């Protein structure tokens, strides 16, 4: 089962992602609410995949992404963005994010993106 770490400062969004992906066979092993906590949880939990919001307190999602990729260049990170954040999404992809999902989430699109990311990895 794929182990997923979710990082978003809104518990609403973390719950929504959890409800979308758990019935599809993903295991949510941890949640983080800011860009510092996600790095700590990544070190502790070694998830197979991270779903990370771009806008977060303490360290932005892009900053946290860079921190994780510096520790583990093979980290599988999918960014969660909103409409209007195209420039930031491009920056995230250049910094090592594998893919991105745009809010509001379409459940089938979320699951398809995660599966595609894992297929590319294998």
């Amino acid at each position: 089962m794929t182990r997923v770490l979710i990082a978003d400062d809104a518990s609403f969004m973390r719950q929504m992602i959890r409800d979308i992906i758990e019935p599809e066979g993903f295991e949510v092993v941890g949640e983080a609410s800011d860009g510092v906590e996600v790095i700590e949880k990544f070190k502790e939990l070694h998830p197979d995949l991270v779903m990370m919001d771009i806008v977060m307190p303490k360290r932005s999602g892009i900053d946290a992404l860079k921190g994780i990729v510096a520790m583990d260049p093979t980290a599988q990170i999918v960014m969660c963005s909103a409409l209007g954040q195209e420039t930031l999404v491009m920056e995230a992809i250049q910094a090592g994010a594998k893919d991105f999902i745009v809010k509001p989430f379409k459940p089938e699109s979320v699951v398809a993106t995660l599966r595609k990311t894992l297929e590319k990895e294998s």
Partner: protein
Amino acid sequence: MDLAKYRNLFLEEATEHLAEMSRALLILEKHPDDGEAIDLVFRMAHSIKGMAGSLGYDSITEIAHKLEDRMDAYRAVGRIEVVEGIAMLFRGLDGLERMIDVVRESGEPPPPDLELANALSPDAASGAAPDALEEPEKKCLRRAQTPRRRGVWVRRRRRPRSACAPRAWIAS
């Protein structure tokens, strides 16, 4: 999707966000260049936009999006415009509070507030974010031309050195 569960989560979290925004705006009234407060209002508006969008509360999404864009422009220049700018932000905050009360009381999406949406638009006559800023700072920004963000102030890709360089660098 269990709509009632998410509606309750939204009401709980959005109410907390509005309280945080209100506190940050009070700080900004006294300290318009408080970067932490500017960033917090931006993030809270962004978060409310995301949650409301997920539930189909389009009127809330629209107002939160306009507040987010305003705060993004203020983030780019590092301070807010005190008199009209802060008044517009409080007006937007009041509007969001009213809309969220409608959701709390009726469980239904609130109706759009076109007057508020227009007032918060970057082209509105009063309180348009960077118009009140000093000319050198305005040179760092331009109006976006993409269909979705048309008219929104965004940072220029190539910043005029004289206007946007850190002051210490200019001095040297």
